[in-house]
């Protein structure tokens, strides 16, 4: 295996990347190699799908498969080698269907179909050993000796960003959000990667185009979420348990959550959110369920201890799963793209086994004194009080906005974000999204003239809200986003964050602070290019970065 797609990748003097029998995320070499092969297979589908679409014969069903397939290859999503063998077989079938569709469309228009090679011509080996042999040819570092680290790094940036795009698009897709343009964009990006591009400028251009594609996807996802569940509104969420049987829902998939809420109505079972599911409490149609009892625990990296202590069933709806401990292995279930070998997977949205488990398990024996936090500051809620915010800025009551958002993780150095939030001056407002907020969201930040100093925008899936708020403020102040008293302090962990970063860069947003480390796939030359072009900066220490942000504003 070789993988360096996430922040926890193995770092060493001999080069960065997980390359032993098991990655730091827990992904074993077999699964990693099969994931590489699935990416290759997806390129093959896209090669034909892009050409078919150009001839007016799009195949959005294949598009949906590609979104799902790439989502399964994100960090901390699917660790089940068996699932990947099945997905590879399905991928070949999808590719053959799309190929036939393309050839038929070409002939119908009097054209001779292209004969494609490479990924488009891939045939899955008959057995596991054969598949693993095939995988050795298509890993992320294939062609390194010919093109060098910088080109491989840029290809990786695009691939990993694309994985994030696909994950977000899949989230929209399950709620009925679809777009021909998005499918076309994904197919085009994969088709591009299938050519093993080696032109630096073309790669950079493609990376920015991917950022723009992600903006469309995020808008589509925002529309799917708010269209289905209503616009988030500020809501108090209980973070202490109540007595009774319980199910914990983690991940990002709001459709799985609503299905579970429906299926547990009147059973007496309380539903708790975990990790990135916390913002669900802000949606009117979700919080209307009285048994959506509260939030339990913190960010994903704490799940092994928190899940072990949770006295009910656990449902993992999307990333980020880590190896289930024996203490809860029998009572954790996966859904959607998630998988772990030996853990029961629910593919059809029927959560009866989860409910059965919850009924048999003890649940919480006692109420714990109520404690709440507030969520639900999506773009509608924030922009609904925009006049008040703008007045506060003009009056000098609000000096600066800090967006401290992104993923959390277990790596040392992430206490930077806690310190940053706590040290942010009293006349600043902190916007946050993603699970990084668990580092500080139970801290009492107070308010500025009735405007809470901490505004929780939502999941990382809600990044569109942050962009919409920033651009609306820029409009109100008649300036560019870069001229706003706004600093972006982004913590990244995996590929969804890579997609959002590309979006921010493609919008021309400068001076983003990125941490806790820079991606291993960005070579020194690539980092320099991003610094030169976008002012991208690694984080230093919290106080220095706060001072620098305020100084730049003052200047």
């Amino acid at each position, binding site marked *: 295996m070789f993988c360096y797609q996430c922040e926890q990748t193995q770092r060493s003097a001999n080069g960065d990347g997980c390359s032993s029998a098991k990655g730091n995320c827990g992904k074993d070499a077999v699964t990693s190699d099969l994931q590489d092969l699935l990416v290759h297979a997806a390129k093959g589908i896209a090669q034909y799908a892009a050409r078919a679409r150009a001839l007016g014969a799009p195949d959005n069903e294949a598009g949906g498969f590609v979104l799902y397939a790439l989502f399964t290859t994100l960090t901390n999503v699917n660790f089940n080698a068996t699932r990947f063998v099945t997905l590879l077989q399905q991928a070949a079938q999808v590719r053959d269907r799309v190929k036939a569709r393309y050839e038929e469309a070409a002939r119908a228009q009097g054209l001779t179909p292209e004969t494609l090679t490479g990924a488009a011509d891939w045939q899955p080996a*008959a057995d596991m050993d054969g598949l693993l042999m095939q995988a050795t040819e298509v890993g992320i570092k294939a062609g390194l000796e010919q093109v060098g680290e910088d080109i491989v790094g840029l290809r990786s940036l695009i691939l990993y960003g694309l994985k994030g795009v696909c994950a977000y698009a899949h989230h929209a897709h399950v709620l009925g959000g679809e777009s021909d343009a998005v499918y076309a964009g994904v197919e085009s990006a994969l088709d591009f990667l299938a050519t093993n591009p080696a032109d630096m400028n073309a790669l950079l251009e493609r990376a920015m185009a991917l950022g723009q594609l992600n903006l469309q996807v995020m808008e589509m996802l925002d529309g799917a979420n708010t269209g289905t569940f209503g616009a988030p509104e500020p809501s108090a969420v209980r973070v202490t348990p109540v007595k009774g049987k319980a199910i914990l829902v983690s991940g990002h998939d709001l459709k799985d959550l609503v299905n579970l809420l429906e299926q547990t109505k009147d059973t007496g079972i309380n539903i708790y959110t975990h990790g990135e599911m916390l913002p669900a409490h802000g949606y009117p149609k979700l919080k209307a369920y009285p048994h959506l009892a509260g939030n339990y625990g913190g960010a994903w990296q704490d799940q092994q201890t928190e899940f072990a202590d949770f006295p009910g069933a656990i449902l993992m709806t999307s990333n980020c799963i880590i190896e289930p401990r*024996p203490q809860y*292995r029998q*009572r954790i279930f996966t859904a959607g793209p998630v998988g772990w070998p*030996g853990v029961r997977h629910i593919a059809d949205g029927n959560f009866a086994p989860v409910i059965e*488990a919850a009924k*048999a398990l003890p649940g919480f024996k006692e109420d714990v004194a109520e404690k709440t936090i507030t969520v639900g500051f999506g773009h509608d809620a924030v922009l609904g009080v925009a006049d008040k915010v703008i007045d506060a800025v003009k009056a000098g009551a609000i000096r600066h906005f800090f967006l401290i958002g992104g993923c959390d993780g277990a790596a040392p150095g992430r206490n930077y974000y806690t310190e940053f939030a706590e040290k942010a001056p009293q006349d600043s407002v902190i916007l946050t999204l993603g699970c990084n907020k668990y580092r500080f969201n139970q801290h009492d930040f107070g308010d500025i003239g009735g405007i809470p100093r901490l505004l929780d925008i939502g999941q990382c899936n809600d990044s569109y809200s942050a962009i919409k708020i920033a651009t609306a403020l820029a409009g109100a102040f008649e300036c560019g986003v870069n001229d706003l008293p706004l600093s972006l302090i982004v913590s990244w962990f995996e590929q969804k964050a890579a997609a959002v970063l590309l979006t921010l860069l493609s919008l021309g947003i400068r001076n983003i602070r990125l941490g806790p480390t820079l991606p291993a796939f960005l070579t020194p030359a690539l980092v320099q290019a991003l610094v030169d072009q976008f002012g991208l900066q690694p984080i230093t220490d919290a106080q220095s970065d706060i001072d620098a942000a305020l100084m730049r504003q003052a200047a």
Partner: protein
Amino acid sequence: MTAYPIELTTRDGEQIRFDCAEDQNLIDAAAAVDIILPSQCKQGGCGACHAHATAGDYLLGEHSPDALPKDGGHGSLLMCRTYPRSALSIAAPFDHNRVLFQAIPRREAEIAELAAIGENTVRLVLQLLPDADDSRAAQFEPGQFMELELPGGDLKRAYSLANNGNWEGRLEFLIRLQPNGRFSTFLKEQAKTGDKLMVRGPQGAFGLEETGLRPRWFVAGGTGLAPMLSMLRRMAEWQEPHEARLFFGVNREEELFALDELEELKAALPQLRVEICVWKPGDAWQGYAGTPVDALRRDLAEAKTTPDIYLCGPPALIDFAETAARELGVGEEQIFSERFLPS
């Protein structure tokens, strides 16, 4: 007493460290700091704690020669009978997730069913009683075992579970009655529905490997069928797509049992092929005459893809089957076994 550092590396590359005194065995030393390593009899008799020393010196205490593979190679040891004489590095044949970092649960159960199912074989079904949290749930992995303890606590025996984890709290065992065996005598002469006993578990690292769609072949001798039933029932319940074969062997037809269950399994798991093997059949026997190792050897010779092979039964069956599998090209990492010894 000198204590030495022990570094145990699990199959998936995780490291577990603890100290062990010269007069302590590795299993007990780890348990003293709440690291519960897979083991069973703890008397050097069953082979459940087989591992390899990769560095360091140790004394291997008294043990059954059947508990170690005949060709286990240098450093082959039983952790329950290993006493360090220097710092030790141990390579374990199980993954980190099979190590429990808390005390093994001990629950009260009552006999729900006890029935003869073949010559000298009984099915014992226990119903877990509500625990301190008012839960009856039976949570275990297919292939694991429970230690059964009679009231008084001086008689304990370990048996593999034949069913799957469930929320009703049912534990099913297939038990071979041993002549003059104390637990067997209890089952044969005293035990009745409603009797209480204690169960300690789940324990053990034997279980399904989840490394892809490689075929899964199961070789069972006698009540070695129990963990195989559990694994196959899991496959059926989850509708896992792997090609599967079961070679189930006994000495004489009269010893056969669980044939109805196997028919049910075949219906629920259409890709399952079952070969019932009778070593010394009577004239009327129309099935396979020979040992499950003979049948395994025959089918392996014709297999296009080498399967993962799961073995459970008496030590001789395990040794012969392992030898046959290796000779026919099955990699060491594809062979998983659990030895049954009379107790």
